[in-house]
């Protein structure tokens, strides 16, 4: 390398000191911004996708307060009968997985976002508005809704439309027993439910990127709603529901895809015509009103013929064949006699 003396370098080629110093500052700051930005971007991405690689959300109930009467009722639930559709001898999904792997987009779209973000979820006070084609509409408190009913243990399979499933020991009672109390009229052909809208407690409801138009809504045909298997769940594993599982009350409709089992219910509406349900509203070509578990009708983007039973492992995967009506065909198939289930998915 030839080192030129100052005299040999034309002055036009010497970078003015001011510019040179500025360049170093700019480089330094842009690197800092780049590094910070990447860090921010990564955590923003993690927050959005919930796929934080290095920490798993703790399995916690995440409630600001636990009503004593509700906890007692859940603990006092009658055990499921040894055989029959309200029980199964399949292996239960551990509480840790049931309470940290959830689709509850109000709290974020990652599977562990609900467990992570539903801190201090408030279920006191809780009001359920009943309206529509019935003789006893009104605003009911949680006690009014739940106290008159005896809670039972109900061990159901839950099959998500994403082709994974769990076996969960719910605590609850038949939806029909609740609906009867409001005396639905002859015009009540369907019943619709709303989930809570509260962007203070449910941070993702503030997101500009959410695909869902809140409130989350679901519905059932009246005969489906009155079927004994359709369940109002108030707890699981003999304690009350964690926030991320839909506290304080939710639906469990075991023969349908999981998105029908609407969580954190604040409204019950009896309607004459088929009500809106959120996923059908979003993408009717993929999600229908009935959403019966059906291995013969694939989702346009993936097959429904099999499912992964959670928790599953990489090298011994629990890939099982999906059953018609999630294995509850004996109990519910008659509801759909003569219906083309490929057309009415």
């Amino acid at each position: 390398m030839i080192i030129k003396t100052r005299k040999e370098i034309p002055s036009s080629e010497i970078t003015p000191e001011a510019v040179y110093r500025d360049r170093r500052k700019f480089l330094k700051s842009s690197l800092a911004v780049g590094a910070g930005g990447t860090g921010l971007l990564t955590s923003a991405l993690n927050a959005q996708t919930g796929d934080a690689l290095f920490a798993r959300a703790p399995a916690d109930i995440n409630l600001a307060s636990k009503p004593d009467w509700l906890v007692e009722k859940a603990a006092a639930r009658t055990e499921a009968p040894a055989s029959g559709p309200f029980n199964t001898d399949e292996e239960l999904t551990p509480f840790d997985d049931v309470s940290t792997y959830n689709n509850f987009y109000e709290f974020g779209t990652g599977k562990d976002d609900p467990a992570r973000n539903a801190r201090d979820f408030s279920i006191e006070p809780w009001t359920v508005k009943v309206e529509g084609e019935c003789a006893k509409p009104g605003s009911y408190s949680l006690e009014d809704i739940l106290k008159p009913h005896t809670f039972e243990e109900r061990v159901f399979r839950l099959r998500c439309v994403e082709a994974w499933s769990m076996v969960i020991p719910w605590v609850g009672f038949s939806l029909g027993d609740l609906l009867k109390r409001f005396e639905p009229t002859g015009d009540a052909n369907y019943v619709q439910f709303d989930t809570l809208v509260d962007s203070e407690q449910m941070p993702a409801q503030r997101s500009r990127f959410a695909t869902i138009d809140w409130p989350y809504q679901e519905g059932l045909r009246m005969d489906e709603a009155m079927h004994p298997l359709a369940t109002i769940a108030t707890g699981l594993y003999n304690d009350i529901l964690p926030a991320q599982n839909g506290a304080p009350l939710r639906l469990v409709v075991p023969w349908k895809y999981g998105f029908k089992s609407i969580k954190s219910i604040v409204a019950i509406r009896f309607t004459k015509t088929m009500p809106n349900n959120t996923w059908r509203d979003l993408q009717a070509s993929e999600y229908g009103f009935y959403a019966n578990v059906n291995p013969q009708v694939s989702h346009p983007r993936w097959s429904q013929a099999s499912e992964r039973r959670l928790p599953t492992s990489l090298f011994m995967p629990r890939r099982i064949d999906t059953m018609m009506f999630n294995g509850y065909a004996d109990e519910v198939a008659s509801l759909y006699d003569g219906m083309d289930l490929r057309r009415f998915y």
Partner: protein
Amino acid sequence: MSFLAKPAIFLLCLAPGAYLAYAVYLAFTGGENLLGPDPAQFLSLETGEWAIRLLILSLAITPLRYLFNWPVLFRFRRMIGLFAYFYVCMHLLVFLMFLLQWQWGDIGTEIAERPFITIGFAAFIILIPLAATSLNIAQRKLGRNWKRLHRLTYAASILGALHVIWIVRSSYFDAVLYGGVVALLLGYRLLRKYSKAVQQFSLLK
């Protein structure tokens, strides 16, 4: 100190893959589960994320080089591109091995009948000749055609972005982010080709 840059970037690119590989090793030997209750799905999503991120990063090298007048960035483009290909391969392997358990009937059906998988698979196919011709000797042998061949990166990125957009269920965030960035990076190149003003524009002289 700049000779440390390449190994540093190499390790950064490798880090997520190394962590995932370690998690798979633990799963294989019956150790702690780091991947959640649905590990195959989680692995698929993670490998896919890193594949598209690195593909985008490799696309960003040329615009950054021009915007910041920073030719040194070209040193890293091949490495980042090959890492993107590595994560794409891992993503495909996870799909074939852990999600479909090598059931060739299912694999054929899924690739043929699910459009988002078809375009994902097409992106993978496009990347193969690019990875194969990444060595200097290939550059020399192909001459001008090397640059033409490697413009296929644009096609692969578009297909990759579409693959991400098509899988959207819950949030538009990923689709907007990755799709938007790919559009920006390709758009910049297009502008640069046809606009002298853009050619001369640099954030730093």
